[in-house]
């Protein structure tokens, strides 16, 4: 054996060994896609306008408050967009004073007078920053919630730079409705003083509340709804509460929340305030004894108990919950509120049995297809067929090795890609073998026929595979999820077949032919 043949042999052995080792054992080394292992795939859109509106609300509140301190009362404000509002009822000669207030407290806002109005606009880079922050906070909050759910190996990412979408891949999730519920819950908790009815409780209709105020609500009061439920947690009716618009205590002031049992053994949520939150809560409760305190979650009243005494450090939320509900609620309270609502754009769930079926069927199809191809090659090319079968097996080892090595994910279309490559990988062999046959027919010696066969077939092989590679590239670029998996296995399969059919197969021929000086016949 010449030394170059030896080196080539070692090189092939090294590559195959590395690939085989990186893929073995298959079960541990190959990442399975959600469509094979079962799980849930979610695309969420963060409604950043929520965060922008919240910021706008704070700005308006601040402006009115500071202007009021300077003696400018009776201002009328009206939002005109997510990041803009107008102020009416200010004389032109007050512009300088408003300007000073805006400069000090509303630094991110630009303003100008338009006739009788002052128009405020949030600077665009500030709006972008707020939106970006909202998406990042939402990502973090959802991550925390999914961790708390105990999902193993979740992948939660932002889709694209600066986008508002989040993509979550949650393997093994078998209760998609609950996960959707938990992820999608804004969980914005507020404590608000109930103005009417006195003692909490709620009333049966909005009209009743309006009648109490003589037809129009005071400026600082709004009506919120809440559900009345029975013991089983089923909604019976809706109650209405007149509550103060602002709240100084929110979910942010909670240190922790956990499920517990109330005095009648009913499921409740127990919470503890942070030090600062507890002090403020103490002030509020001592100032409002005898009134109702509405516990408001995502703008619905959960319960409105009567304030009996000053409370500083901890409390409970009771609301005819089921056990599962208090667990989920305390969990979302612990992980914090989403800065903005999220909308689910896409959801796909694959049950574990469906995934397992797919794997079984994929393996069956692969084995069957592979066997047929092998038989076909042996039948057509006799002993030389063994060469093709051998390199085909190497090809499959290389494909799995490369998938494992690069951490690619195997999906169901990916399995199809591998099976397809089994059929197409022999193409290079066929091109070469047919060429060798032709050269033999033309009267060449075996050695020269092999040499010419490989040499002449190479250009066809490269051109032909380049086109399939191009197709795979476009699939990868434009495809998503499982389709990308297909593109990857197809591309890897083609590249591996180039190596095995052109390089390894040639090496085997050279090895065999180098043994004796003159080979008279080739079984092909």
């Amino acid at each position, binding site marked *: 054996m010449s030394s170059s043949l030896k080196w080539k042999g070692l090189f092939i052995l090294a590559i195959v060994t590395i690939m085989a080792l990186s893929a073995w054992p298959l079960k541990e080394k190959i990442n399975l896609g959600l469509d094979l292992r079962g799980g849930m795939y979610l*695309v969420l859109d963060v409604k950043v306008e929520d965060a922008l509106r919240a910021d706008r609300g704070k700005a308006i509140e601040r402006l009115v408050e500071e202007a009021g301190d300077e003696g400018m009362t009776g201002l009328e404000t009206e939002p005109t967009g997510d990041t803009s509002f107008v102020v009416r009822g200010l004389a032109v000669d007050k512009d300088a004073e408003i300007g000073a207030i805006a400069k000090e407290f509303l630094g991110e806002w630009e303003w100008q007078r338009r006739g009788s109005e002052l128009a405020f606009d949030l600077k665009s880079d500030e709006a972008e920053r707020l939106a970006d922050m909202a998406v990042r906070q939402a990502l973090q909050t959802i991550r925390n919630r999914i961790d708390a*759910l105990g999902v193993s190996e979740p992948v939660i990412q932002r889709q694209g730079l600066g986008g508002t979408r989040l993509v979550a891949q949650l393997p093994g999730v*078998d*209760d*998609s409705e*609950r996960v959707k519920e938990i992820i999608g819950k804004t969980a914005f908790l507020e404590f608000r003083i109930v103005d009417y009815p006195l003692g909490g409780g709620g009333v049966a209709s909005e009209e009743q509340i309006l009648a109490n105020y003589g037809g129009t609500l005071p400026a600082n009061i709004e009506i919120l709804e809440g559900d009345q439920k029975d013991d089983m947690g089923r909604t019976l009716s809706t109650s209405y509460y007149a509550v103060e618009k602002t709240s100084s205590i929110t979910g942010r002031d909670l240190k922790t929340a956990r499920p517990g049992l109330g005095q009648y053994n009913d499921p409740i949520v127990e919470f503890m305030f942070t030090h600062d939150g507890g002090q403020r809560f103490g002030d509020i409760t001592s100032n409002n004894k005898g009134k109702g305190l509405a516990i408001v979650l995502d703008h619905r009243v959960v319960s409105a108990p009567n304030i009996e005494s000053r409370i500083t450090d901890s409390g409970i939320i009771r609301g005819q919950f089921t*056990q*599962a509900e208090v*667990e989920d609620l305390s969990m979302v309270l612990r992980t914090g509120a989403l800065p903005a609502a999220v909308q*689910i*754009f*896409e*959801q*796909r769930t694959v*049950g574990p*049995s*469906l995934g*397992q*079926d*797919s794997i079984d*069927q*994929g393996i*069956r*199809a*692969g084995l069957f*297809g592979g066997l*047929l*191809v092998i038989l*076909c090659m042996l039948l*057509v090319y006799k002993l030389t067929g063994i060469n093709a079968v051998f390199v085909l097996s190497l090809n499959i080892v290389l494909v799995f090795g490369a998938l494992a090595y690069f951490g690619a994910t195997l999906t169901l*279309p990916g399995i*199809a890609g591998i*099976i*397809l490559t*089994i*059929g*197409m990988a022999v*193409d290079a062999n*066929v*091109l070469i073998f*047919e060429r060798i*046959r*032709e050269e033999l*027919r033309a009267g060449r010696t075996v050695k020269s026929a092999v040499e*010419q066969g490989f040499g002449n077939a190479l*250009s*066809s092989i490269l*051109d*032909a595979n380049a*086109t*399939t*590679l*191009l*197709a795979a590239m*476009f*699939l990868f670029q*434009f*495809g*998503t999820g499982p*389709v990308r998996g297909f593109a990857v296995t197809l591309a890897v399969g083609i590249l591996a077949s180039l190596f095995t059919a052109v390089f390894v197969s040639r090496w085997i021929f050279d090895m065999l032919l180098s043994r004796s000086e003159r080979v008279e016949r080739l079984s092909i």
Partner: protein
Amino acid sequence: MEFFKNTHIDFMKYRLMWAAASAALVVLAIVAIFVHGKLNIGIDFAGGTELIVRFQDAPDTDKLRAELTAAGIDDAQIQRFGDADSHEVVIRTPLDEDAEGDTSELLAILNANYNGEPAADGFDLNLGGSDALADYLLGLDPFELRANDEALAREEYERAAKLVLGQRKVTGLFSGWDEITGIDGLEPEIATALESKAQIGSFAALGGGFVGPAIGAELRMKGLLAVVFSILVMMLYIWVRFELRFGVGAMLAIVHDVFVTLGLFALMDFEFNLSIIAAFLTLVGYSVNDTVVVFDRVRENMRKTRRESFVDTLNTSINQTLSRTILTSGTTLLAVGALYFFGGEVLRGFSFVLLVGVIVGTYSSIFVASAFALLWEELTHRRQGGDSHASKSNGGSKKSGGKSGRRAVAS
């Protein structure tokens, strides 16, 4: 075994007929799509809700449709999924603009029709998830652990719930209590408690989900771009590597293959989804691949035998590569066929496209690509008065015109 040894078939003799037949096939396919009325567009592109359900007993799709209609869902599409004895159906419903999809409504309707009114303290072992089952077991507390150690109880019941639902994974659906009592490592107390309180419902949801309209529109756009760009780039590739007439032939072959396959695909009512786009792109790649091998030989033969006319060169080249063409198509067909027959329901449409595509692609590389390359040649050069071959020496085989002389000497 050699299939085609030294064949001399005159493939190009009836080129006009082949060209006409191929064009007719394309027209027929387009007509088929329109006459059939629709492509079965999946939720990937149309947006909508999808639910895959496995029933205990063979489901009656007409009855199911009537039940859904009665419950207010009148535009559901119901198809059998998998083998007839798997008792599976897939239900798809369109989604209103901007609505958030939800499979729980469909599940509730099925529940009402097939499981009856659930017991207040019941639990459907075929529908619930493992967290919910753990909570349920915690409520039943068959080990009577809760009074002493809540945390330990939770741990124990979570383990038991995983065991039970791990067993469901095998069949996708429990059909009798013995499947639960027989679970390895599951305490009899749990099995007994479940048997006395929980239910085995008459169906299970195997999977599903929804695609919102915004995502659907996006995927449509991406799919379209992928197909258009890849066809353009392949044309460009062939044009650069070969000559214009070959590029034209290859492109017509692609168009032919895509339309003929699409026509058959539409007639078979397979769902057109993302993976079908992948199949079509692969088909384009394969079709070009096959064409390139023939053209590559044509180019080589033009260098070697400069005297021969273009039509003779084409014929020789096709005959020389015939054995390879048939064999490669054969092995690919074997693999794709295995995929079609054994690869399962999800890949059925996908492998159908490839199955048809390989056959059509093989046909087209000879009868469409080569025939049109020749017709193009004849059309564009008849006016110059020369025979078809004369053009080659001035049109030139671009890249290797100079090199070919040396090669001929060397070999």
